[in-house]
């Protein structure tokens, strides 16, 4: 039976208290939203969610990767291929991007299930990730949050079977973003809710109930997309959902994560799911769809994941709205942005094993692991005698460090380290870490991030982050 074998999520640690947007001081435990920091975007969040999903599994079993986002940085050039490389998946992995609609995540999920059911792939990794921007000071800015969720769809050891889904497609100009635009637009809110979101969501759910001969009360858990808290509440009332059924929509904690929003709620639902429970996922965007799952006994065997709850506990609240603006390069500056042509594409090409997959090499002659790849061994001088060696899934440690206050960043200093992993030395930035926490010998793991932008293109590379202690897992 086709379904979800495994899941993972990612929510950036940085949070923007909503009070700061309104120019008020932030209160402890006040509403906030998750914010992709300046070295994060839909790609890096997708890689993190993907890693969390695949943790403990054999990556070579993944036959296909579907990536869903409305905020992938390129108009032409595939995101799934980049993410597959960062996840170090097989060479013959099938990749596809799903975009254009806020429903892209669940559409990808459905397509993956269809592929597995049809037998054209045994295992498909689906990752939804979004990092949308509302104009500074707008209500959309306060509503939106950033995050990602990943699911491995297969017919083996599934923790939830995908039972059925029902969708309606709709042509409506309610929420959109034009070519080359940074900010999402929306038509008048009552129109959007009354003619779009509410009726279509209800229609999709009723369609599914009819098709499956179920009642809404048959579902123990309902994950419902909502553009904002109030609109979401309207559909909850229309469907007569009771409080116990409703998956926490995380308004005031995460915010509306676009394509990833319903998938993140699904991941959160799976974290606490019990065998036999039925889940309903309702998503909206250019129409709506409802998908039904049944939780299996395998859910009890799945080792604990870095899911939504795990990430929500790890917070770094911003102290000022200005830092957020800086991280999104929305602040006014006297400096012209450098007219640089970016890195040569040939460098990206030559270095993709190191930079994107974080693969080093192990000398066959002296067994020294080294990074980056080179022709002659750093230690024994043997030439061209290496095996490729994946470093991204290893735990390293800080050998030495400094705090660079000079390097431009929205919130200096940049923590710069030399870290060691299996004997290889890597010049590595630390993120989600404070100078106070930085110590010689600190255990670190790797996280895929933006390192720089050049020529209007993001450059991606790995950074280090303190590896959580076993208790925190």
């Amino acid at each position, binding site marked *: 039976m086709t379904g979800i074998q495994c899941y993972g999520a990612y929510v950036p640690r940085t949070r923007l208290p909503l009070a700061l947007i309104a120019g008020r001081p932030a209160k402890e435990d006040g509403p906030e939203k998750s914010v992709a920091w300046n070295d994060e975007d839909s790609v890096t969040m997708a890689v993190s969610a993907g890693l969390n999903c695949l943790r403990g599994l054999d990556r070579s079993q993944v036959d296909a990767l579907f990536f869903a986002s409305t905020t992938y940085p390129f108009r032409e050039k595939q995101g799934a291929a980049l993410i597959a490389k960062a996840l170090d998946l097989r060479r013959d992995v099938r990749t596809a991007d799903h975009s254009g609609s806020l429903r892209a995540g669940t559409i990808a999920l459905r397509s993956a299930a269809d592929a597995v059911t049809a037998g054209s792939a045994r295992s498909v990794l689906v990752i939804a990730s979004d990092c949308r921007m509302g104009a500074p000071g707008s209500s959309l800015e306060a509503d939106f949050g950033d995050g990602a969720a990943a699911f491995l769809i297969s017919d083996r050891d599934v923790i939830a079977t995908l039972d059925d889904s029902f969708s309606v497609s709709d042509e409506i100009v309610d929420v959109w973003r034009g070519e080359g635009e940074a900010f999402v637009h929306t038509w008048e809110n009552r129109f959007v809710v009354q003619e779009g979101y509410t009726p279509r969501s209800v229609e999709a759910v009723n369609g599914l109930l009819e098709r499956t001969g179920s009642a809404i009360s048959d579902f123990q858990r309902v994950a419902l997309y909502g553009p904002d808290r109030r609109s979401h509440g309207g559909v909850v009332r229309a469907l007569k959902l009771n409080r116990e059924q409703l998956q926490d929509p995380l308004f005031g904690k995460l915010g509306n994560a676009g394509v990833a929003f319903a998938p993140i709620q699904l991941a959160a639902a799976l974290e606490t799911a019990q065998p036999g429970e039925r889940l309903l996922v309702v998503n909206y965007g250019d129409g709506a769809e409802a998908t039904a799952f049944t939780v299996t006994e395998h859910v009890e065997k799945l080792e604990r994941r870095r899911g939504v709850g795990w990430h929500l506990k790890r917070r770094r609240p911003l102290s000022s709205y200005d830092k957020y603006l800086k991280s999104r390069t929305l602040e006014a500056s006297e400096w012209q942005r450098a007219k640089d042509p970016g*890195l040569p594409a040939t460098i990206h090409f030559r270095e993709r094993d190191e930079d994107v997959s974080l693969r080093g090499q192990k000398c066959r002659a002296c067994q020294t692991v080294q990074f980056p790849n080179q022709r002659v061994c*750093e230690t024994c001088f043997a030439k061209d005698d290496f095996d490729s060696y994946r470093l991204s899934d290893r735990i390293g440690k800080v050998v030495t460090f400094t705090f660079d206050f000079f390097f431009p960043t929205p919130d200096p200093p940049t923590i710069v380290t030399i870290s060691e992993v299996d004997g290889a030395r890597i010049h590595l*930035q630390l993120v989600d870490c404070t*100078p106070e926490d930085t110590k010689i010998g600190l255990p670190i793991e790797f996280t895929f991030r933006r390192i*720089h932008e*050049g020529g209007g293109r993001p450059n991606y590379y790995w950074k280090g982050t303190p590896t959580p202690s076993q208790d925190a897992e």
Partner: protein
Amino acid sequence: MAREGIRDKVAIVGVGACKFGENWDQSPSDMIVDAAYGAYADAGIENPQEQIDAVFSGSLYSNKGPHELSDALKLFNKPITEVYNYCATGTDTLRCGVMSIAAGMYDTVLVLGYDKPKDRGVSGPSVMMDGVRDLPKTPASWFSLCAATYFDKFGASREDLARIAVKNHHNGTLAPLSFLKREITIEDALNARMVSWPFGLYDCCAQTDGAAAAIITRADLAKNYSEKPVLVKGVTVIAGPNPQKDPSNDFLSWKPTGWAAKDVYEQAGITNPREQIDVAQLHDCFTLTELLSYEDLGFCEKGEARHLVKDGVFELTGELPVNTDGGLKTFGHPTGATGVRMLYENVLQLQGRAEGRQVKNPQIALSHNIGGHPTACGIAILGLP
């Protein structure tokens, strides 16, 4: 290695330098002319077009190199070579000139280093961007990477670094061509804005424009130019592994300095550097660079340098004065010029012409540059006959 060596074969018979600083009103050509004509005058050269056989010049930021120099000095119909070796460029320029004379290729050579970073419109060093993973790196963050391990192992602190800054600032007030001429206190250094921990503003050298030149000639011809020529006892430039990638690096020292010291001491016949060297110009791009270099050059044991700093060993009146003109700290670091500027200071010291900063009766002087990540070290040892 087959080595006849270059010891005592080549003499420096004239030195010159422009004023170092934010030379807003000077072009590279202006500075080149100031430095070269200073050296001509010092060597009594009145007709350089006749008397100079070849030129070795060094610059990090210029992409015009030989053309810029020949055009500025109107040295046409001459062999001109541009040398590029990061911060070791100046010393390497001397090495190339010395080798050409020792090989019998030329009799008299102009060695010149210059750089003009203040034409770039940015304060401080550029952020490198050669490849995806090369970022972010600033020189301060490359060099500060030894601090955490060194502090941890030897109990050194920011105060130990501050003492070096205070010393060099003091020496700089006594050098007419220096850029920064202000005494500072340890408190000034400790309270300054942080650049890359543990380096505050005063732990970093300034970025300046500058040019320096030397006239070198066959030792047996030296008296034609100078009453008191200075002999080249040894000169080397040695490459080491990138310390950031080197799996065996302990971040307590920089390998190229140790290797270069061994090589150049052998050339110059130095067996006890602390005893035999009377004055030294060390690469103090950052205070920690000077501290570690005391040890890497064999002036003392690993971990001991901070005690000697505290005891005043490296001050003008100390046992082994270091950076008598204030070093990179007060001259700034126009990269190509720095190594040659150090030769300028060492020649003045050996000839007893260093005025208010003159050390007592020096016979042997050492200059040292380390650059890259750091990955290359150049050392030159000069001495009186």
